[in-house]
């Protein structure tokens, strides 16, 4: 499979797949690439090149997930990356979707006030997702970091590996949101707003699916392994 490597120009990545731009930004790498290569820009921004490439390649080839390669990276890198994706959801995807849903519903006739429930549904979904994210940031991630950096100080060995199963319910609701809009929307609405909203929801869905996979298939097995090997 053709994979991006450190000698590719960064520009080439974005020109091949513009959906990679948010991922590149997530690593703190900014535009103004010029003709610089991936390796050059990564070292300039102090980003681990191999890890960066593993992530962009996973995003680009949606049918492949380099499990073994990802497992070989330090859990600290994984946690750091997961935090950055959380930031992106909190400050970009979620507010964006909220604004677009609001605008979409405002464009529907007043007499269809029941449609407003879609907005209420989204807000409830968002609240649940944010709670899940907060639990990860406050409990899971610090636990993992402690396990790597100071394993001797970790007293609680009973890490709940089923914790991440919770996001399955949340994923289900995102799917329901799509169906409620696509199948049961009243026909009078602003089509441009709707297109933008669906674009945003689909790309958020893809992003969060990769994110969940990172947690389930990479981070959690790493924690289990650390717990086994630590004294």
């Amino acid at each position, binding site marked *: 499979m053709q994979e991006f490597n450190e000698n590719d120009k960064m520009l080439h990545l974005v020109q091949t797949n513009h959906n990679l731009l948010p991922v590149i930004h997530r690593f703190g790498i900014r535009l103004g690439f010029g003709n610089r290569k991936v390796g050059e820009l990564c070292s300039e921004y102090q980003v681990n090149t191999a890890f960066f490439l593993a992530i962009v390649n996973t995003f680009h080839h949606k049918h492949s997930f380099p499990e073994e390669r990802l497992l070989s990276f330090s859990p600290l890198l994984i946690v750091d990356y997961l935090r950055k994706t959380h930031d992106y959801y909190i400050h970009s995807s979620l507010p964006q979707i909220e604004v677009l849903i609001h605008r979409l519903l405002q464009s529907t006739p007043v007499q269809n006030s029941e449609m407003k429930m879609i907005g209420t*549904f989204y807000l409830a979904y968002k609240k649940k997702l944010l709670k899940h994210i907060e639990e990860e940031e406050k409990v899971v991630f610090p636990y993992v970091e402690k396990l790597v950096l100071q394993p001797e100080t970790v007293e609680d060995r009973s890490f709940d590996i089923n914790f991440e199963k919770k996001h399955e319910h949340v994923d289900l609701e995102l799917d329901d949101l799509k169906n409620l809009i696509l199948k049961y929307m009243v026909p009078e609405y602003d089509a441009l707003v709707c297109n933008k909203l669906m674009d945003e929801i689909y790309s958020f869905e893809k992003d969060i699916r990769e994110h969940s996979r990172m947690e389930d298939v990479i981070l959690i097995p790493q924690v289990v392994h650390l717990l086994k090997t630590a004294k």
Partner: protein
Amino acid sequence: MKGRTIIIVHPFDLVCRGLAGVLEELQGIRILCFSSFSEIKIVEHTPAENLLLFVPADCRYADELLELRTHLGEHCLVGLTANKTAAPHQKVFDHVFSLDDPASEFVGLAESYFRKEKTSQNDELTNREREVLRLIAMGHTNKIIADKLFISTHTVISHRKNITEKLGIKSIPGLTVYAIIQKIIGPGEISPDQLL
């Protein structure tokens, strides 16, 4: 993520990507590609309700294929051959396809395999299902719904399954919103924490 998954194992990248590309036209199915059997342990992490696997029907992989077959249970295993005449280990496969078969046959197989679970193309709810949905939206448990409608909990569960399949909506908050949009229940009739 639960759902329908297609796994393609083949040493040739071109075969993996070509087949994935062809099958992509089926919506709502996750497709994963692997170049060798050793990578496929990802399956353990993928609690798929419905799994369709395409693997090379090649006697070099006899051991791996047998092992896979025993692990797969009722999931569907499809062997890929270079041409129809040379198809060893037929017994482990549910189907054997040749790489010179038309693309539409691959799509047709996947489509009919995944369609088995769908009972209805019609999303119109019956009166009884509307009643059950109304009670779900009010936050009642299966037991209470059963008592109110003088039916068994088993019947309630089967109504719920049909409702979810017809509407494509799976969560309770989602069903509640649907019931309000369709005026099956008024917004004032649900408890405020029903969406949480």
